[in-house]
């Protein structure tokens, strides 16, 4: 007899018992999901006639983990185990990843992915690639609002129009389901690219991309969320009288959610260290991500166009220049903030969060037979439709947030017979009309990628 039935047997079904049941069910899902995923991946890897298992390990030292005006440092270790690569047309692949932060360990996460893909040749010069994969990402309890499951379908087509001209069409459909359901979305991206290589060692490439993202219910709010837990954020909301929000069609209108003034929680300032402790329903500046109450979906459509020009310089050097511009066709960010953490996926930040343009210059070099290096400079100019800039006291400045970023990075990689070792350094400087996002920081990373032989294959 479960909790609900026992409660019924005692004469009443209490809200507490319902909440406990939902918590218990979710906790069970968490507990069984990790060993189940591990078991499934190991089982499939064990059964597969020919598989390569790859182990990767990287350690990162970051000077500004939350990428805000008050830099807070931390270190991250990322470990991953992946399998796949069978020579069959239809093949399984998967991976497990652990991302561990030392100081702000609430943002540590575990991810498991399993997929099946199919290569379908079309003549000797073209082929389709199809893949279906599922993934689960779990964070620690402080940020378990970021927990999500993903179903992804990938369809690619690549064709050699001539031996030096490649046409490619990529499609990705993605369905994400979060514990904090305001983040739930369906996204579709279509990318068309055409590139040509000339005898002068010059490559020219053009790429156009269309993206569609549908947030199912970014403004939903009830007494409890989908897990039956009352978000802490609800304690800080003040609602207007609902009756006054009804339109003549008797439809609920969006209700702006107020929060406490300066000095109180959710006020838009304090410091990142304190705001981090408020958990995943708050942005790092201390404002709840949900800023309106309504039922319904919101969609965003973007279009981008870019080009690349690459030139070989002798036998060991290469120089490339690329630029891209992205436009918002429809919609805007439905959340109060768009936060980008270093190496930690934040559901409020992705390619749909901004429009603007970017440029990149990269120099690659073969230093020795096994040692390669590269130096890269990136520039981004982005604005975030729907996100309003605020001063450091949390007062609205009445303008859309705009950022400009300079980024310089360098990387060395040593490729041995089965292990690749790498080290990289990056310096970033972000300027914004929102003073919270005026920041600079550096990242030092080092790691290895190790191909573990599993079994013989053709």
């Amino acid at each position, binding site marked *: *007899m479960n909790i609900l039935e*026992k409660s019924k*047997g005692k004469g009443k079904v209490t809200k507490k018992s319902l909440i406990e049941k939902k918590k218990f069910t979710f906790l*069970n899902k968490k*507990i*069984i999901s990790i*060993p189940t995923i591990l*078991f499934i991946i*190991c089982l499939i890897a*064990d*059964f597969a*006639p*020919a598989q*390569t298992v790859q182990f990767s390990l990287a350690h990162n030292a970051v000077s500004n983990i939350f990428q805000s005006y008050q830099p807070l440092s931390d270190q991250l270790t990322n470990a991953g185990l992946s399998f*796949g*690569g*069978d*020579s*069959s*047309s239809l*093949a399984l692949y*998967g*991976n497990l990843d652990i991302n561990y932060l030392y100081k702000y360990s609430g943002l540590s996460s575990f991810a498991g992915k399993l*997929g099946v*893909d199919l*290569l379908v*040749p079309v*003549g*000797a*010069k073209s*082929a389709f*690639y*199809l893949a279906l994969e599922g993934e689960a990402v779990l964070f620690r309890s402080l940020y378990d609002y970021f927990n999500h499951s993903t179903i992804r379908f*990938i369809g*690619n087509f*690549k064709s050699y129009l001539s*031996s*030096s*001209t*490649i046409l490619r069409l990529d499609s990705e459909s993605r369905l994400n389901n979060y514990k904090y359901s305001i983040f739930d979305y369906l996204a579709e991206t279509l990318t068309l690219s055409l*590139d*040509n*290589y*000339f*005898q002068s060692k010059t490559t020219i490439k053009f790429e156009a991309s269309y993206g569609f993202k549908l947030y199912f219910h970014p403004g939903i709010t009830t007494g409890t969320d989908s897990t039956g837990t009352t978000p802490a954020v609800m304690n800080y909301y003040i609602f207007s009288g609902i009756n006054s929000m009804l339109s003549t069609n008797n439809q609920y209108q969006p209700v702006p959610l107020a929060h406490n003034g300066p000095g109180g929680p959710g006020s838009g300032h304090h410091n990142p260290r304190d705001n981090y402790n408020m958990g995943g329903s708050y942005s790092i500046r201390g404002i709840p991500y949900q800023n309106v109450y309504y039922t319904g979906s919101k969609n965003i459509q973007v279009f981008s166009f870019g080009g690349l020009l690459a030139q*070989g310089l002798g036998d*060991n050097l*290469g120089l490339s220049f690329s630029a891209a511009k992205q436009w918002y066709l429809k919609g805007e960010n439905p959340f109060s903030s768009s936060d980008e953490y270093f190496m930690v996926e934040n559901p409020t930040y992705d390619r749909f969060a901004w429009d603007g343009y970017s440029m990149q210059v990269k120099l690659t*070099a*073969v230093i020795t*037979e096994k040692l*390669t290096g590269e130096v890269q400079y990136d520039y981004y100019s982005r604005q975030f439709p729907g996100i309003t800039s605020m001063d450091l006291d949390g007062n609205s400045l009445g303008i859309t947030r705009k950022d400009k970023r300079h980024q310089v990075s360098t990387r060395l990689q040593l490729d041995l*017979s*089965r292990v*690749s070792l790498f080290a990289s350094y990056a310096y970033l400087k972000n300027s914004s009309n929102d003073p919270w996002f005026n920041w600079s920081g550096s990242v030092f990373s080092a790691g290895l990628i190790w191909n573990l*032989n599993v*079994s*013989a*294959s*053709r």
Partner: protein
Amino acid sequence: MKKNNQKNVKTETFFSDKINRKGKTAVMKFIRPLLIFLIFVIMVPDQTTLAGQQTQTRKPDAHFYNIDRETTIEGQVEDLRFEARYEGKAHFLILLVREKNSSELIEVETAPAWFFQTDIHKGEKVRLVGSISEESPGKKVIMAREIKINNRTITLRDRRGFPVWSGGRGRRR
């Protein structure tokens, strides 16, 4: 209703003397897939052995990787094609490379994944290490282990010739 409750209480007491009800269900659900995994690991025969015992049906032109016949060549890509090399296996990306010194045209077998993961064009310079065989007079075939192209080195097989191409084959590297 009271009787049923008493019966259920007795049943639960039997199982949950030491472990509370929530913990028991969680532990059982944790242990179940682990037990199934252990059974498979113990009972299922070693797939490596099975793979070794199977006879791969291969096309007449194909060959096995032979580390005793490893060689290094430099040249230029003349053509590319996606071709079936082994029955029951995915198509491989085949490069036709004109060797720099001898101007000989050599067929290079790379990997099935490589068609999507790397963009390679006619006219690009390559340097590769692989196992060479002469399938017929004038026709040389290399099974590539390592390819250097576009200022980067891509490892397709380890030093024993076993492939190391990774899953998620449709993604760009």
